[in-house]
């Protein structure tokens, strides 16, 4: 009976209730949409980094993590790779030589990380081959040694397609070695820093220059069935290859986890701030309701409605009012998330700035179902908080006086 009474009371003054409902719906939709955008940007940054650069799991010589010197090698890499690929949940794996180097053209130079890769294997673990904007990804046979560089570096070095680049790096014997490469491909990712700092050559070419053996590598990159599997698979591999260091993407780039956690927290705080602002609107509405229904409340208390029941009636009314707003807000938010999660939102005009920070200019917003549940709980808590003051006001009424109020 009290629930029915509270529900019907909401619709006594439709305009006033609809204003509150609209405010809650708009507030929630705005908060959820912004959170979804931030989540989408962060998740895309993480996905891009995993797909393009770090993969789900990496294996190194333990000392390579401390000092990225190419002398810290994984030996018998072919056999190791075969063992790795036989593991469940692992979809692909590749190995690389890797060194810091100086890339120079006739006029300019820049510090880079050079990857010696096996293109066919690398294609399966990294998305760089899909980011080629000029030339190709080592597909055309060339007489000279081939190099694929980022667009940003190409601009920096004035290195157009077919131009020569000299790469200087420290060989395993400690001597400086240099090799001449010709640009066969230029890639462009949505992270200009990556494009400026990384170059790719065939493994055999880098190995020859640095003195690395054919069955040796500095890094094994592994893809798992899903990103969530990476930690468990990494743990399992670590127990099998105890002499090597196995890390999941979470350990390789802890900053990604920090970023994701921060965005999660940001979303909740944003919702709390929005709901806090809405509390005042709800309190104002409910105080008006109490003032208008003074006589009715006086009657209810006179005929024997006790304080807990009066409290519940007003609290239910506030909660129902808020939940109607929340339901509309959540439905709109879910619709928007579904729509833009599918089509994406293009921030082309801010592309340069976003890509300089490693974000994609195309954002696919999303929020987890857990977020929706917590937002609903926050709305209920807000409604309870908002109902305290009006309820206290109602409970303080003297029934004998209230029943005669005009």
């Amino acid at each position, binding site marked *: *009976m009290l629930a*029915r*009474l509270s529900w*019907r*009371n909401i*619709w*006594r003054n439709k305009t006033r209730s609809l204003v509150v409902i609209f405010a809650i719906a708009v507030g929630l939709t705005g908060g959820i949409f912004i959170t979804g955008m931030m989540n989408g940007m962060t998740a895309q940054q993480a996905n891009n980094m995993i797909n393009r650069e770090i993969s789900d799991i990496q294996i190194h010589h333990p000392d390579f993590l401390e000092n990225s010197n190419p002398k810290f090698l994984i030996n018998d890499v072919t056999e190791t790779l075969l063992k790795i690929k036989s593991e469940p949940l692992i979809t692909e794996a590749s190995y690389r030589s890797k060194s810091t180097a100086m890339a120079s053209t006739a006029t300019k130079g820049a510090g880079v990380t050079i990857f010696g890769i096996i293109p066919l294997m690398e294609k399966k673990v990294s998305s760089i081959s899909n980011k080629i904007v000029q030339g190709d990804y080592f597909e055309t046979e060339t007489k000279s040694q081939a190099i694929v560089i980022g667009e940003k570096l190409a601009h920096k070095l004035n290195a157009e397609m077919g131009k020569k680049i000299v790469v200087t790096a420290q060989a395993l014997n400690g001597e400086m070695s240099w090799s001449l490469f010709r640009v066969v491909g230029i890639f462009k990712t949505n992270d200009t820093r990556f494009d400026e700092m990384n170059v790719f050559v065939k493994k055999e070419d880098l190995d020859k220059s640095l003195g690395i053996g054919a069955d040796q590598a500095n890094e094994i990159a592994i893809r798992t069935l899903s990103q969530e599997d990476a930690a468990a698979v990494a743990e399992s591999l670590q127990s099998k290859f105890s002499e090597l260091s196995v890390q999941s993407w979470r350990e390789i780039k802890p900053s990604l986890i920090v970023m994701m956690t921060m965005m999660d927290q940001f979303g909740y705080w944003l919702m709390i701030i929005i709901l806090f602002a809405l509390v005042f609107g709800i309190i104002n509405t409910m105080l008006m309701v109490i003032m208008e229904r003074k*006589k*009715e409340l*006086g*009657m209810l*208390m*006179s*005929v*024997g*409605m*006790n*304080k807990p*029941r009066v409290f519940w009636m007003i609290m239910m009314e506030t909660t129902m009012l808020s939940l109607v707003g929340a339901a509309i807000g959540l439905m709109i938010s879910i619709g928007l998330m579904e729509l833009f999660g599918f089509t994406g939102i293009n921030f082309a005009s801010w592309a340069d700035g976003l890509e300089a920070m490693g974000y994609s200019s195309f954002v696919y917003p999303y929020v987890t179902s857990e977020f929706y549940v917590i937002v609903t709980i926050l709305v209920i808590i807000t409604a309870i908080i908002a109902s305290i003051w009006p309820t206290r006001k109602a409970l303080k009424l003297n*029934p*004998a006086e209230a*029943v005669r109020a005009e």
Partner: protein
Amino acid sequence: MNVIEIKNLHKTYNETQVPVKAVNGIDLQIEQGEFTAIVGPSGCGKTTLMNMIGGLDQPTEGTISIDGNLLNQFKSTGLIDFRLHNIGFVFQAYNLLPVLTVKENVEFIMQLQGKSRKECEKRVDEMLESIGLKDKKHQRPNQLSGGQQQRVAVARALASKPKFILADEPTANLDSKSTSDLLDLMERLNLEENMTFIFSTHDERVMKKARRLITLEDGKIVKDVTVK
């Protein structure tokens, strides 16, 4: 048998500043089945007395006993519960809940008492039949005339089977036809259900119907007449 027994009742407002003695030493007994009107000029203490009998106000001195229960002994929560189970109220402005239908208004107090749905429905049908508004069962109060609304209010007060009904100026907002109908209805219910009615009123028509007239002046009973 006395339903209400009042001894040496006093109520003083503004005790510390300018004391106003609204009720000044009333002794009164009201028996089961009485049809009593409390009358007197404005400010004579009718409403204060009614409020104290209804447990809505506390006396400064004296006691009120309802069916052997001293109201002073109850704490706030206990008093609300006592009112719910023992006292029926009819207000001047009907005070029906506008969002509930006639049926829901009549059964409201029974539901607060925790009566079963079946019991409520049976009693609501009886009451609506009795007040002649069975066909308006699903209508809202704003679809009824003032007289019909007050009849619903009487049915609501009576449905929960209280010990007595306090009716505060129940005819003040009604025209003569509605007043006459309402008084006939209450008189009939008084006789049929042996329900005790206590009115506070200025209305001559109510006074004519009442079988006992208690006249107050300056917070005291100056006349107590039983009409045969």
